[in-house]
């Protein structure tokens, strides 16, 4: 079982959909130095995050190196119902991508 790149959970709470996601990503700032070689470790971080619901963007985020390693994202949005699907995707500065879906519980 390989490491999942995004873990996503969503549930309805007081009429609002609450989405939580834990993403596996190094989020290297590009400023850290390799202790052995002294060279800078190249920047590798998530740049764009999108969450969609029924074809609509419910969250669009532009991230940078200030976001922590293995970012945890949590947000709420209206207009969803139990059983609907939400999809979250990210792309990073090296062209890496990942996405995951969950049903709102």
């Amino acid at each position, binding site marked *: *079982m390989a*490491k*999942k790149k995004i873990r996503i959970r969503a549930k309805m709470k007081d009429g609002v959909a609450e989405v939580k996601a834990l993403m596996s990503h190094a989020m290297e700032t590009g400023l850290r130095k390799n202790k052995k070689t002294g060279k800078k470790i190249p920047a590798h971080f998530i740049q764009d995050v999108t969450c969609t619901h029924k074809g609509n963007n419910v969250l669009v985020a532009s991230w940078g190196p200030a976001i922590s390693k293995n970012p945890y994202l949590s947000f709420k949005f209206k207009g969803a119902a139990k059983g609907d699907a939400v999809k979250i995707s990210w792309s990073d500065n090296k062209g890496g991508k990942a996405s995951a879906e969950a049903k709102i519980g």
Partner: protein
Amino acid sequence: MKKLLLIATAIGVLGATPLVSQASPEADLKAFRGYYMERFPNVALEDFSDGVYAIDKNSRDNWEAIEEFPPYEIAIETGEDMFNTPFKNGKTYASCFRNGGIGIKGDFPYFDTDKGKVVTLEQAINNCRTKNGEKPLKYKKGKMTAIGAYMAFTSRGNIINVKIPNDKRARAAYEDGKKFYYTRRGQLNMSCAHCHIDNAGNYVRSNILGPSLGHPSHWPAYRAKWGAMGTLQRRFTGCNKQVRAKPFKAQGTEYSNLEYFLTYMSNGTPWNGPGVRM
């Protein structure tokens, strides 16, 4: 008279008032537990495994929120992968442990009468690796915490039940750990007891000091300060540095005996690792 002299000497030597200058580990445990039950009367014994989150509502709310999607999940998954991947010689970790290595965190630490020392789970993991031709893992962070997280996870709910065998060396290891706990050290000249007994529930800067009762239950843990997982002995290192004492080597005699003493003092509380902490 002799006992009075012994206690007086103990207090003189150790600095902090030992709760446990009693005659036996069982009596020590009773006194230790009794102190915390009295200091925190609204906390049930089994809830002490939640540490600070059992004694402060605000922290607990934050903790419950993060537990809905805990950062240690990644470590558990990685650890499970590692646990199930065979070594180069074809054997797996399961072959080194009772019950195939599942639900056995409570078997550690224990006093190994053959080796004549305390053996912790981390040491056992490395013993397993070296026995099967693999390189040992570092003891404080990284892969060791991943496999430790998985093994802790499968043991959740079991009750801490460290035994001290009827062996002079085992008793000596326990007493050594106890002495470490109550000894002042570092530029700040403080012992573990000063913070975690005398000041349990009080603030040190912006953190609340947790009671030692229940401390070993939730390791390895994801600490927000580290932004990563760490073992219990990684925390010992940090604590010693925080009183500006030179830390001891992870999995050396000092910290292993301390872990032995501390885990025994938490007998009766549940294993609930891996955990999330500040």
